[in-house]
């Protein structure tokens, strides 16, 4: 498969391939809209998850720091947008002003989480980050008194949609006879943001910082002996990962026009971790694949499980929701059994799992 995908030495083919993929992705919402606008929304959520998975991949995949509270940064970004662009405080800033603020605020929270956990690793770090995620959610739930900031469990409604000049992202327009709905516009916007995020990620991985993350992940003491400021490097991983989460959160708030703490529960964090692990920790493309699969498959199952039961047994034997989670869990177990390093493992992860099986790998 690798040989098939190897387009080195054939740049024309590579570019043609990229162009075809981009074109397919750009035209995708038209196809999805034919099945129903719901599917465009599902695609949008999938892209948001891809953004989240890419952000978490920096922390987990590159720097090797397990973060089970990642959704907190998504929440920070979402609430930042909601508070600065809604009738709640009657502030209505444009989105390109809020998104950087949301990213910066999320990065700040990333450092806030990173600083006290610098000496922790593995399980201990996971527990603390899990707690952090819950703390943020509980704060959002309770910051309605004495000063009403977040409106608590009621959430914030009527959040401003994105506006680009005269284009309102919440309305349906007709361009050249084509119906362009709000979710479709958001899809393209998300796609554009995604491209930027991918470029940043690829550049990061090959940079000096990327190498420093690699060293910290492998052996922290040795990394320090190599002259790497491990404190800075780890905090940077937390901050950068968080800022991507913050951006995704801001877009989520604008797209949904309503957010509440319920969207930022622990299961969401676990889901993003599952996407990263399933797709292939440390591999940008693998992580994206994991995110797309894990956000689409449950939806597909949602729409097929009930009709399938009707057709097979004539009635609903098992609640569709139960079956959905069952199949979902089964799929995860199977992937971990047959592709333990993820669907598209990073080179480094693959090596780790390979060398244990090499006959010459016995330690002298």
């Amino acid at each position, binding site marked *: 498969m690798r040989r098939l995908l190897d387009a080195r030495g054939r740049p024309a083919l590579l570019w043609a391939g990229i162009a075809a993929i981009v074109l397919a992705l750009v035209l995708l919402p038209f196809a999805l809209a034919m099945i129903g606008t719901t599917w465009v929304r599902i695609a949008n959520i999938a892209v948001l998850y891809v953004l989240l998975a890419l952000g978490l991949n920096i922390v987990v995949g590159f720097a090797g720091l397990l973060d089970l509270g990642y959704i907190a940064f998504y929440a920070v970004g979402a609430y930042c947008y909601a508070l600065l662009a809604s009738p709640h405080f009657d502030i209505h800033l444009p989105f390109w002003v809020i998104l950087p603020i949301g990213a910066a605020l999320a990065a700040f929270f990333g450092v806030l989480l990173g600083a006290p956990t610098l000496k922790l690793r593995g399980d201990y770090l996971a527990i603390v980050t899990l707690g952090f995620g819950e703390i943020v959610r509980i704060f959002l739930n309770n910051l309605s008194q004495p000063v009403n900031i977040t409106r608590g469990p009621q959430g914030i409604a009527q959040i401003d949609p994105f506006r680009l000049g005269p284009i309102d992202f919440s309305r349906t327009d007709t361009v050249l006879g084509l119906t362009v709905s709000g979710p479709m516009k958001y899809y393209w916007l998300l796609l554009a943001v995604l491209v930027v995020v991918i470029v940043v990620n690829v550049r990061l991985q090959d940079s000096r910082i990327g190498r420093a993350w690699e060293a910290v992940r492998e052996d922290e003491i040795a990394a320090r002996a190599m002259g790497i400021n491990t404190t800075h490097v780890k905090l940077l991983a937390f901050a950068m990962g968080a800022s991507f989460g913050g951006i995704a959160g801001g877009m989520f708030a604008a797209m949904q026009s309503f957010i509440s703490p319920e969207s930022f529960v622990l299961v969401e964090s676990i889901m993003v971790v599952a996407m990263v692990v399933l797709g292939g920790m440390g591999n940008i493309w693998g992580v994206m694949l994991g995110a797309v699969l894990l956000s689409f498959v449950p939806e597909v199952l949602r729409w097929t499980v009930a009709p399938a039961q009707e057709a097979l047994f004539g009635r609903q034997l098992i609640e569709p929701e139960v079956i959905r989670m069952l199949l979902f869990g089964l799929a995860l177990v199977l992937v971990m059994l047959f592709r333990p390093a993820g669907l598209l493992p990073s080179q480094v992860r693959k090596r780790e799992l390979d*060398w244990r099986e090499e006959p010459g790998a016995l330690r002298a």
Partner: protein
Amino acid sequence: MTLLEARALEVHYGGIRAVRGIDLDVGEGELVCLIGANGAGKSSTLRAICGLVARSGRIRYAGEDIGATPAFELPRKGLVMVPEGRGIFPRLTVEENLAMGAYARTDPGIADDLERQYAMFPRLAERRRQTAGTLSGGEQQMLAIARALMARPRLLLLDEPSMGLAPMLVAKIFDIVREIARQGVTILLVEQNARLALEIAHRGYVMESGAIALSGEARALLADPRVREAYLGEGAG
């Protein structure tokens, strides 16, 4: 000229005093060894010099007080350590490990130095695309030393390079250490294998329960009956 000078160096782990106010000097161009039994405080001394553990006392390197310098700054000053247990990056290739050694450098000579390491360690050249975790113990030790050399050390600190190696490999590693010293790198060697360490060193320090028990010319220490009895397995019986 003294390159490294430690005075009244102390290391505490909670209530335990691992290093009890020792004085230690390493002159420019010297190969000095620090020997002693397990738990004598040798590795703690080394870690204290590198800023990897909290310490008190005075440490001067190249005329500069490094008592408060964080560990990651030291390679830039030419003080490089090979950590205990080698500390290689197991999932990276040999070449990637070596490149990581030059992380603190920005000069253009890195590629040349890489070839220099391969010339010195042909085993590593053969295995440059192999992951470091698949190397044998001796090869991993060579890689750890070569990686440290990639940082162009002025003072190289070696923490028990013979640990867990077969006698033949130990001899080979010591040949390498001697060769590095001959090339002009100052070395402080922490070692449990007292005989081999004293045979290649100029001077030696013997550590016992956190303090320096003996010190002097390596040759004199090798002949010292106290050393022979306690560390070379000879004597009264």
